[in-house]
């Protein structure tokens, strides 16, 4: 398992995953257009060998003339192979894409569509990722199904780097590595400590 920014070499794997999983498909050129316009916005998950794409999020900046000139992102497509579901991949991919849209392109919010019948996706967007349902788009899909048009405000994203600077110190890690018997409570459980615990339990 590996989750990282998508590169050109990932496109055919993303296209393959998309064709395996979803009814809305795109030709290579369209992925290439995403990659050369917003290279930071898309992410992939691979299998343990690191070569096969098992999940992806394809995202972009909305190009239509913005109302109020507010730039916003759009998630074109997201899917995870069935055999890799329930590991939280979709959520992790989305979080990375949203951060990129916000940081690189100044997207104030991000929008997406989800099939009304797709309860798993609705759960992910609404409950896990805190998207709001903005409206119902009638007959949005080729087969006539309605879509929920959803949105999430991005300006509330945490500044992860600042938080990290403020709260994390490396000492415990360095100690963990240098001095294998470190017993700093809460952060590192060493051999001896864990053995002691099970014995007393």
């Amino acid at each position: 398992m590996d989750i990282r920014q998508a590169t050109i070499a990932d496109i055919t794997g993303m296209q393959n995953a998309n064709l395996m999983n979803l009814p809305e498909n795109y030709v290579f050129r369209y992925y290439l257009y995403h990659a050369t316009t917003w290279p930071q916005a898309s992410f992939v998950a691979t299998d343990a060998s690191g070569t096969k794409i098992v999940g992806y999020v394809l995202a972009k900046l909305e190009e239509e003339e913005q109302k109020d000139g507010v730039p916003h992102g759009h998630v074109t497509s997201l899917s995870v192979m069935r055999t890799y579901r329930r590991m939280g991949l979709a959520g992790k991919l989305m979080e990375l894409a949203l951060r990129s849209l916000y940081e690189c392109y100044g997207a104030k919010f991000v929008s997406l569509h989800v099939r009304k019948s797709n309860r798993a996706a609705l759960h992910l967007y609404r409950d896990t990722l805190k998207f709001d349902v903005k409206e119902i788009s009638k007959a949005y899909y080729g087969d006539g199904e309605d879509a929920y048009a959803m949105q999430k405000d991005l300006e509330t994203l945490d500044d992860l780097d600042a938080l990290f600077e403020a709260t994390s110190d490396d000492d415990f890690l360095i100690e963990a590595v240098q001095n294998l018997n470190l017993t700093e409570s809460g952060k590192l459980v060493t051999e001896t400590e864990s053995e002691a615990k099970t014995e007393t339990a």
Partner: protein
Amino acid sequence: MSARQVPKQRYLAPKEAASFRQVLKLYETHQYKKALKVADTILKKYPEHGETLAMKGLIMTFTDQRAEGHELIKLGLRNDISSFICWHVYGLFNRTEKNYEEAAKCYQHALKYDPENGNILRDLALLQVQMRNLDGFISSRKQILSQRPEIRQNWTALAIGYALVKDYALAESILQKYEDAMIEAAKPDDIEHSELLLFKNWIIHQSGDVKRALEDLEKIADVVLDKLCVLEYRALYLLELGRSEEAARAYRKLINRNPDCKAYFEGLEKALKVTDDVPKRKALYAALAKQYKRSNVAKWNPLVFLTGQEFKEAVSEYLSGFLARGVPSAFVNLKPLYTDDSKVQAIEEFALKYLSTLTGVASNGSSSTSNGAKDTAEATPTTYLWTVFYLAQHYSKIGKQDVAMEYVEKAIAHTPTLVEAYMVKAKILKRSGDLQAAADTMNQAREIDLQDRFVNSKAGKYYMRANKNDEAVSTISLFTKNDGAGKGVGDLHEMQCIWFVTEQGEMFARQDKIGMALKRFHSVKKIVDDWWTDQFDFHQYATRQGTARTYIDLIRWEDSLYSQPFYTRAAEDAIKTYLSLHDTPKSARVAAELAGLSEEERKRVMKKLKRDRAKENKKLEAEKLSEKDDDPLGKNLENTTKPLEDAMVFYKPIKDLEAWKWLGEEIEKRKNAPVEAKTEATA
């Protein structure tokens, strides 16, 4: 132009000259009908006028009169061979024909007669980079830059050219010169500027001067919008410079952003110098897994470097976590470890032991187990299900299909609606060699969840493995656009679905439907060829966007396009099929079928053969890939008189790859001994 003498054949009276300028303008604004009308008024007075003829021809190629247009273009050029317009037009025509080499020649002729023409130079540069004539590309871009130095893209394009030939010093100096001369400061949200700053930084790093790359990075860090890239570059540079503590910190920051990216963990390991020290490495991961509870990588990586008892403990914890939470993907995660027998053994022991502590759960549905195994503390009734499900995949992987089947049946008995269990059962059947039962079972899985395309795709694939084309096509067509010709198959072609096209081709080959098989293999090649030509529009586009690093990635990736398995697999299939056509021509195959039969039997067999074929053909005829598909059965391909030459078409793109040399040798062998091959076939 005015300074030059207009040659007699090009002269137009002022009125017509104005009309000609109008034609050019109308062409540029795609008003083809009007443009043709105006061109005709010129031709009334000057019927031989080369440039007008050429323009008229060019416009006709855009209005569905390709052949006639082509003729006119050639005629125009013949009438005015020293006109840059005529050559440019011919170049444009060749470009739309994807005949890039000819197009480039035309542009070069055009430039002979108008050396300063920026449009033609730009078009020539596009062709040069498409054909990887990088020296030519650089020289064209140099000229363009000297003409229009005020345009940033012209600097970017030349820098890209130098970067492509790895002349990083020149690439950097070109970008630097533009920055130095930049009159306006970049706007804070200028992503193009941000990308180009990173491009220059990347160039400095590529040149090998890591120290300077880091200095430059710190200078631009505040302006660059791509924060993640700055963090990644910084971590890498620090590591390469041996500034370990800072590098470790930088990688920690990255892991904090994305605790599932393997590269970050590798970087941190290197920075902390623990890569070759198992106890330290283990301690590091223990600490990270504790801090990043959602990270799969932090838990998974130790499974690779730990051995013996330590591996046992680690894998027990990893696996029980998956099983207790009911995550179906435990096996696909552990699969890479199955190359190590001792690890396989340890996993099996654990899973069996774990199961034995759960049997109580299975029978009475209660989750209280107190067999002393601490791992089962959070076990739920479904834990039993996921454990037998795991064991089924485990035994199937190690080749014990019978045992695997027992376990998967237990899973199905426990939860008869579990799609995953049927999918695994189908795989076990496939590995046992019962392709028909495998397909039926995969279809059962599909029927439980009709909404899911993944299991639909799998069912389609399994049907094809069982040589069931009808079932496969009707299944996959449930998720395709079926309004065009060819139904689902046509849509999957249009959507460039290589896995399907290849599988179907291989199925046809197994069934001896040679024409259909070849047709599919050609389709795969066509898809890959399209991926090659797709880059054309991005030479200019990416330069304009400033996404130079992505563009260079694209160029290098395209250079390796045909060495990728999606092409080589179909190429091997196609070449083997052509070789068999060469070795056993159709007549010989029919003869072999009839050998040893009496006259009467022969007639009967022939009749039946014919009837079957006709029936089959009628069905397949319905599989036209598009309205224009005039050979849905691939008869033209099958009836080739030069199978070895056809095989070469597939071999050419991979001829320099060591792994595929043997295919070339097979073709050569037959080419060099044509007589022998024939006598063998008839013998």
